[in-house]
């Protein structure tokens, strides 16, 4: 009992082939779109490469790029096949290739689905990676004279200005690290020496933040130093002051930005997957109906097309037995074939 059997007249077959030809070319375009989305994601991740540490999340854009290229190739081939299927003589050329092609494309659509799910699942790894990367970058903020780290001050400043954020979770992260290099500290001053002695590691900690944390929407000129000291500034209360500095943490800001990108890309990939699946279904119907036409002999007659010849269970059983017999073909065939022998002896006596 065939699965989802549909009867096709000659005109319906021809129209199906033409429509599938166009759809395959549209799929080539969507494959190119996937490829460019992968490249876009790769560029975005590389732009913030200095702020991501530890986990390697490059596999997501790499997967998208590979899937996009393979989709272009597969659908290009599919377009050629469907173009030739309008003419039943040309179909004979592709007859043997079509079934393997359909099977390969079916497994390929799984890859597309996996790609889409990876886009959504990247969230947690990204958060961890950003957390570690930002902590490290803030620690090396002051090391503008160390090769390999001299650009981190610029990177963090531009990040805080562009994404309107301050610190890892909030501006208080800056109170726990020394972000002013020792080169600019006057060690002869008592205040500096007191601060250095006030903690175990001998770090110069202040309750101040870099200028890039300043909020441009504040009505007041920015207060960067002695933030927790209300008496240091006129008409200032640090518990209620919200407009002076950026309140959001940079990890959250970056995560939001990337999640937004990932969700859009994931959605596009899902739509592409559904489209590929429908094109594949059409190609399967075309293949089965054309094979039935060849079996019947008359090119202009009606024929049936189906997804599977027998039900799902029987198809699975036959495939398993085929795979088992492939294993057995290496053994010597010792069965007795009387008809073969008779044929052989008859010809030998002549």
């Amino acid at each position, binding site marked *: 009992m065939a699965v989802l059997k549909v009867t096709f007249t000659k005109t319906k077959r021809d129209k199906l082939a033409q429509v599938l030809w166009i759809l395959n070319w549209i799929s080539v375009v969507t494959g190119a779109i996937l490829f460019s989305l992968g490249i876009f994601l790769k560029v975005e991740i590389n732009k913030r490469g200095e702020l991501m540490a530890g986990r390697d999340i490059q596999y997501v854009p790499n997967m998208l790029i590979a899937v996009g290229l393979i989709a272009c190739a597969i659908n290009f081939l599919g377009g050629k096949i469907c173009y030739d299927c309008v003419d039943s003589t040309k179909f004979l050329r592709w007859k043997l290739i079509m079934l393997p092609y359909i099977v390969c494309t079916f497994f390929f659509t799984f890859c597309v689905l996996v790609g889409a799910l990876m886009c959504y699942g990247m969230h947690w790894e990204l958060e961890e990676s950003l957390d570690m990367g930002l902590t490290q970058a803030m620690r090396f903020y002051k090391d*503008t*004279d160390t090769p390999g780290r*001299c650009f981190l*001050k*610029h990177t963090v*400043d*531009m990040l805080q*200005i562009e994404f309107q954020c301050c610190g890892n979770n909030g501006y208080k992260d800056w109170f726990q690290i020394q*972000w*002013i*290099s020792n*080169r*600019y*500290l*006057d060690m002869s001053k008592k205040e500096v020496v007191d601060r250095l002695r006030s903690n175990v590691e001998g770090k110069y900690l202040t309750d101040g933040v*870099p*200028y*890039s944390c*300043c909020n*441009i*929407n504040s*009505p*007041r*000129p*920015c207060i*960067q130093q002695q933030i927790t000291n209300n008496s240091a*500034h*006129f*008409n*200032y209360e640090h518990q209620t002051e919200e407009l002076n500095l950026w309140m959001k943490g940079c990890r959250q800001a970056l995560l939001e930005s990337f999640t937004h990108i990932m969700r859009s890309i994931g959605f596009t990939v899902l739509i592409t997957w559904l489209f590929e699946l429908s094109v594949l279904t059409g190609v399967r119907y075309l293949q089965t109906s054309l094979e039935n036409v060849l079996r019947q002999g008359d090119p202009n007659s009606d024929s049936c097309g189906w997804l599977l010849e027998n039900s799902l269970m029987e198809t699975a059983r036959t495939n398993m037995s085929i795979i088992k017999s492939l294993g057995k073909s290496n053994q010597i065939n010792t069965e007795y074939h009387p008809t073969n022998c008779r044929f052989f002896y008859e010809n030998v006596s002549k």
Partner: protein
Amino acid sequence: MTLLKMKFNQQRRVRLAQGLWLMSWLAVTGGAFIFCLGVYLKTELLRRDEVMENAEIHVVPNILMMVGLASMGTNWVASRVCQDSLDVSRFPRWKVPLLAWFAMAALLCCLLLTVVVLSYALQGSLEDSLKVGLRNGIRFYKDTDVPGRCFQKETIDRLQMEFRCCGNNNFKDWFEVQWVSSRYLDFTSQEVKDRIRSNVDGRYLLDGVPFSCCNPASPRPCLQNHLTDSRAHYNYEYQSEELNLYSRGCRQALTDYYMGLMNSTGPGVLSLFSCVQMSVLLSMRYLQTAVEAAIASENPEGESEGYLLDKGVKETYQDVRAKVLGLLKFGQVDPSEDASGAAEGAKTADTEKAATPTPAS
């Protein structure tokens, strides 16, 4: 003596019409591109509207947009003329509109040239407009509680960060202005009182700048206050410090940006487009004369001559001048009627004069 005469047989006329049709559609796309260029330039100018005092510079994008739209229409008409040119019955109706078309196309070429000249000539006006606008912005920086000026702080901060500039000419402009609002000054403090008394206007002036002047490329955390005092900061020398703040003035930065925008697009794109437009004009003239000559002759499918001008340049100019003056003369009174009219006028004046003396006596 005709100018640049050429012979055209039927096949050449057909090819000329086809080539002209393609070129006119190319010119339509060029016109659309010029329109988009004008729109882009106008939006860029409007974005920084708050720091510009007058809108004189807006004449450049306005003319660009007008030229773009006009050329789209003109070249579309040209393509329709080409389509009709090979049909003997339909071409004669274009006879009069083509004169207007030639005038329009010539005007467009002139306008394009004007735009290129203007984009260089208006640089001074742009600089002056920016100077006044930025000076006001810096002066009203502290007035975040005054309606109508409350946005100036944000505007100036954003501008300085985006264009990497500080102040009008340089960062010292901030030393001459009170940019810290009195709302945030503690008037009981001695330091504040001293500063306010130190100048005639009673303003709180300091040698500090807002945070938006800070240069992120500096290896050192930004120094904003006591900039002229080398002893106020460790390992700091005011005269030799270059990386701490942005050294460029915002007026210079903005002028460079807009001039760069106009000069990169101006000469290249506009000269290319005016070449295309000129060639459309010349080809249209050849097509018009060739087809008209073919239609007028006994054999419309045979050979005909096309030319640019019927007579030489000087004679054509005199002809056109005489025609235009003739058109203008329709508005004036005819000289032959004038003499009799003057006599009548004199008679009525005499009768009036006879009537008026009675009140005097």
